[in-house]
């Protein structure tokens, strides 16, 4: 009997070491926004800066941010950049481009339904371009596999936002992504460094489920029109200290604004008791 037990244990140990994970990330994937839904899908009141390691420059930008600036002709069709677009509700397709001579993967390609963006993730070890070439919304990406994790590094990204609440991103952003698949779930990690607006890397992770029926209404035509009658060259903004809506989120959810606007220190466990103190009596 002892022999049987020993054998069972040994066999179990072997089984435990023999499972193989998925590595094929191609297919069509749809967002599951089970984290930060209100920010990522419909958008909430102005002023959700929680969890972002923003610096003082980003705070000043956010204080000046007037959401109606996006109504300007040249802004209204500006897509989310690659460091932001995965946060929204999205379906995207991944497929491979293979070298016919070797069947090795030259690149992964992505078509992102939101804003109809295309990406190429080069797998052939090519260098990133020099600084003087144009930056794009999707940037320039190179990838490499580490076991079952596809790690992608993207540079040459156009400036945009980390949040629609006015947390800016700069054109010096570097995005590192990790694609991880388990069954029909694709986890997508974003580690964002931005020396202009962040004090430390900004960490995001999103989940996508594989779509059984894909390719539905994936086109996005945005037409520039004068949405709201205004001087074409007017730039909506608030002078420092004059933004009447910046604390709306803090007020709506009973949070101290200094915590909502606090940046990196508020993202670590040590901040929890401080926050409780700040919230006492609210």
């Amino acid at each position: 009997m002892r022999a049987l037990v020993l054998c069972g244990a040994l066999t179990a140990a072997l089984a435990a070491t023999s499972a193989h994970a998925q590595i094929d990330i191609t297919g069509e994937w749809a967002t599951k926004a089970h984290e930060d839904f209100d920010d990522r899908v419909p958008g909430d009141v102005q002023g959700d800066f929680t969890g972002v390691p923003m610096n003082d420059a980003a705070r000043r930008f956010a204080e000046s941010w007037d959401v109606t600036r996006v109504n300007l002709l040249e802004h209204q069709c500006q897509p989310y950049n690659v460091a932001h677009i995965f946060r929204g509700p999205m379906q995207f397709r991944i497929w491979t481009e293979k070298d016919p001579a070797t069947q090795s993967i030259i690149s992964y390609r992505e078509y992102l339904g939101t804003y109809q963006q295309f990406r190429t993730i080069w797998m052939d070890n090519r260098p990133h371009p020099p600084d003087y070439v144009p930056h794009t919304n999707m940037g320039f990406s190179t990838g490499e596999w580490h076991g079952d994790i596809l790690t992608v590094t993207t540079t040459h990204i156009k400036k945009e936002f980390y949040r629609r609440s006015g947390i800016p991103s700069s054109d010096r952003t570097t995005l590192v992504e990790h694609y991880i698949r388990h069954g029909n779930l694709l986890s997508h990690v974003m580690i964002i460094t931005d020396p202009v607006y962040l004090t430390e890397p900004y960490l995001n992770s999103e989940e996508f489920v594989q779509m059984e029926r894909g390719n539905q209404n994936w086109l996005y035509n945005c037409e520039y029109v004068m949405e709201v009658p205004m001087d074409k060259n007017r730039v909506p903004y608030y002078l420092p200290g004059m933004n009447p809506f910046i604390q709306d989120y803090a007020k709506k959810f009973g949070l101290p604004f200094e915590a909502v606007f606090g940046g990196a220190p508020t993202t670590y466990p040590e901040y929890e008791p401080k926050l409780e103190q700040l919230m006492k009596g609210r």
Partner: protein
Amino acid sequence: MSAHRNIGRRLALASCAAALTAFAGQAFAQPRAPASAPASPKAGAPIDLTGYWVAVVSEDWRHRMATARKGDYESLPLNANGRRTAGDWNLDADNAANMQCKAFGVGGLIRQPGRLHVTWSDDDTLRVDFDAGTQTRLLEFASTAQPSGEKTWQGFSRAQWQRPPQAGGGPQRAQIGNNTGPIAPGGGGRGQRGGPELSPALAEGGSLKVVTTNFRAGYLRKNGVPYSESASITEYFQRLPDAANGDVYLLVITIIEDPTYLNEPFYTSTMFKREANGAKWNPTPCRTAPPPAGTQQTRAPEPLPR
């Protein structure tokens, strides 16, 4: 009887031999498999999860760092029963009933701001201590380990390593990128079916799959959003490739299926950053800070299906 015992022994030895043969075959047949076959989950761990890890709360901040108001169910695929039950949450009643740890059970603990201390308690058991709520989880690799009769906050966790195909005899050709070296001439230059040599990086790493059962009902979030004893909880612990600045990150993907309160699988992924030591390790008792006064109206569920 003795004859039976003999038969039993013979069967046991035969199956053991078969298992060992299969194991040896797996371990040595593939050039890119680890040189020495893992003798135990600890010795053969494809990734090192041990050490101190701190949660970086950059997502769901108001639900994790703060205690959201009752009625704030943002992002959750709750069904009507889940909403009704969450609507009955009463922190004072929980405290009076000595149920402070309900928000620190296996279904919600990973989302609490805190630190993990991961160690091997033996060759087959990975121990994860949480300073938030001073909780301990034991991740059991050995099939001989069985849950006790009593349900606990952390339940019983069955663990299994998952390895990339290259580490265990997957495709040896170049279809998965990371190509190095010259193109093999004639499509067979290296005795392969063509294609460049694979990068060793393809054999790196792996993940830890954990399925937990036998747990007490608890809260998904501090503000009383429930999960039931019959929920299915599956986790994947992923150590991410080291960042260029030297940071090391751990991602924990959690999938909770609970028809009692949820109308679809509930997915979260939680990021931790490695710390050099336990200098900031700060065990605290199970305790939930009171939410702001009032009840939060959560907007209509919107695109999430009802």
